């Protein structure tokens, strides 16, 4: 006789935590979480204990103390009587300056090299190949040092400009001096009425923008193409030049002159800035070129053929059909290239460029012995900067993304 029995209600056993798929993933997560927290706790504990042993405390009071050192490139007022916080700010601005200039030049170089690498001209495409492989495969630091060494060794000293028969002379009608300490260019001096001129210039920029919108709308509605480029060019130059003479030349130029040990007057673009800027741009440009190339190749050939079939010229095909689609592929990796460039700018100390790594992360730390605090601040600065850059680029990416209707 068969007896029906209830299936035994399975009691929960500990081994189920490992062998039962219902619980296993939970077990792994709990274990991982505990391990991570233990690691964090150990690091923090270790730091506190070691600081105690060294007899050091943890405070940011040093930021308010007198810095006592001088910085050559200052975008804001600074002297050796300023505080360490002010020195850090000077460094931050210098970092942002070189990162900003670098991102612009790297993008220009990258787009040109990327497009030319796809050129049908054998020499041009190979030359771009050499550029990309050469810069991509040699460390940034070496490029920075190479550019700096060339600029220091191959250009004349200021004292070579002196005398009856100087060994070197200024270029561009005696307005620009290229020396081994940097390039001296004329600086604008803002006289009376300069404000009006600036407003006129800004107004003409707004005019260009408005005209381009109008032209685009007109083209979409009627198909008539307006001469956007020539009108923009005219708007850019003509009103400003007209007002420059009407207002009686409110802006004059301060030309660099050799006085004493060095050139004075004008704007001094230091070799360290130029070397860092060029090297970072050339290096990052090589990566951007590859992004651009891959973006263009990602657009199917049929798109080009369809555009040609509609009678679009190659130029317009590139601008109106290929690039808008390619941008979707190009932008995301471009963001990380911008971030790389910004972070690589911390190699500045190799050429004595006073970025935030050299001021706050170098001299200030060294004079005050606040390594931990300084490095944390430095890390925080780069983190925030990178997040802002990628935030902005993500917004741009959203705007050019394929919009599904």
């Amino acid at each position, binding site marked *: 006789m068969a007896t029906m029995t209830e299936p035994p209600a399975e009691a929960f*056993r*500990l*081994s189920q*935590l*490992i062998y039962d798929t219902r619980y296993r993933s939970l*077990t792994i997560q*709990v*274990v991982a979480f*505990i*391990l991570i927290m*233990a690691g964090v*706790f*150990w690091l923090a*504990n*270790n730091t506190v*204990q*070691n600081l105690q*042993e*060294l*007899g*050091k405390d943890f405070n940011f009071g040093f930021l308010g103390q007198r810095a*006592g*050192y*001088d*910085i*050559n490139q200052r975008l804001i007022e600074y*002297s*050796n*009587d300023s505080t360490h916080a002010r020195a850090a700010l000077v460094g931050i601005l210098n970092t942002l300056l070189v990162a900003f200039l670098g991102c612009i030049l790297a993008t220009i170089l990258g787009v040109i090299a990327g497009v030319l690498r796809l050129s049908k001209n054998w020499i041009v495409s190979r030359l771009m190949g050499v550029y990309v492989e050469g810069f991509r495969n040699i460390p940034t630091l070496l490029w920075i040092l190479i550019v700096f060494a060339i600029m*220091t*060794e191959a250009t004349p*000293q*200021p*004292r070579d400009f002196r005398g009856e028969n100087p060994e070197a002379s200024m270029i561009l009608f005696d307005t620009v001096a290229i020396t*081994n*300490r940097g390039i001296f260019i004329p600086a604008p001096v803002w006289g009376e009425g300069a404000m009006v001129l600036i407003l006129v210039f800004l107004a003409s920029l707004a005019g260009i923008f408005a005209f381009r919108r109008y032209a685009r709308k007109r083209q979409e509605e009627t198909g008539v193409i307006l001469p956007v480029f020539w009108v923009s060019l005219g708007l850019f130059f003509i009103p400003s030049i007209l007002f420059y003479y009407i207002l009686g030349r409110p802006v004059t130029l301060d030309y660099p002159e050799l*006085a*004493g*040990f*060095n050139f*004075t007057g004008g704007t001094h673009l230091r*070799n360290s800035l130029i070397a860092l800027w060029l090297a970072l741009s050339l290096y990052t440009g090589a990566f951007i070129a590859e992004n651009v190339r891959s973006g263009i190749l990602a657009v199917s050939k049929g798109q080009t053929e369809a555009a040609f079939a509609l009678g679009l010229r190659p130029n317009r095909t590139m601008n109106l059909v290929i690039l808008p689609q390619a941008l979707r592929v190009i932008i995301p990796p471009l963001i990380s290239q911008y971030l790389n460039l910004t972070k690589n700018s911390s190699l500045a*100390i*190799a050429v*004595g460029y*006073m970025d935030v790594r*050299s001021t706050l992360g*170098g*001299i200030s*730390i*060294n*004079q*005050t*012995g606040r*390594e931990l605090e300084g490095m944390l601040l430095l890390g925080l600065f780069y983190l925030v900067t990178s997040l802002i850059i990628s935030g902005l680029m993500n917004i741009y990416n959203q705007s050019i993304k394929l919009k599904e209707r």
Partner: protein
Amino acid sequence: MKKSVLLGTLAIAGLAAGFASAQTLDEVQARGSLNCGVTTGLVGFAAPNASGEWEGFDVGLCRAVAAAVFGDATAVNFVPTTGQTRFTALASGEVDMLARNTTWTFSRDVDLRFEFVGINYYDGQGFMVPRELGVASAMELDGATVCIQTGTTTELNLADFFSSNGMSYEPVPIETNAEAQQQYLAGACDVYTTDASGLAATRATFEDPSAHVVLPEIISKEPLGPLVRHGDNEWGDIVRWTLNALIAAEELGITSANVAELASGTDNPEINRLLGTEGELGGMLGLSSDWAQNAIAAVGNYGQLFEDNIGESTPIGLSRGLNAQWTDGGLLYSPPFR
């Protein structure tokens, strides 16, 4: 029935950091070698020679300490440090001592928590310019471009000197002496400033040293000395008294040549105490009784170290000046070995 195995998933309690402050001497002895922080290369003070061995005035001190601890002057790892990395290297324990043209200042001693154990070179900051500039005094340097090593006291002295004299300058910050030399020779700066001894050492390596002049102004006091971490007094004592042993040896006429002979016993009790034939000075330091004898035999006394590396017979050609024994009108004065 299946045996279930439970993994000890929560057994993480044993992670409490075990960081009892190990004594530096024990660590060094266990390691079998001394980690000594030196410059990245300043001829005469610390630089690798043609066969890659470090030599120089500061290097000699490292070797003397190694000889005192191990009886072997070669048991040293030289760790090159820049002006910016030296303090972190010492504070973190990467090096046991620093013998690197480092100026003894209040804040480094007190705030940075280091222990300067003595002064092995009395120095001051000077300026070097190319002779063809025709500059005769530092007061004529208004508007000059000046190369400086970052993270040094010279950087601060320079700022003070120029602002207190109402002059302006353009600083060119540089990481190491070698880079500074290259920038200076290329004319990227008009002036190179560092400790006068460093200027002399750098100039000695130039192709034409006579084309460069060191200006007469000395704008600061730069007492250079070896330093160790604050808090380990036993180790500080060893480095301090090794330096004093070298200084006292010169005063007592002990040289590397005669040290073995004198160690067999003399009529002078101070020599006997120093060389360990009398008393227990070595034992008090936790070292063998012939510690000072080993140190002196390895590198010679202070005067020998000076003459061999930076003295007037070398290309660097520094005179003893303030660094002569007190008996000769200098500032070197070792406390008695008693």
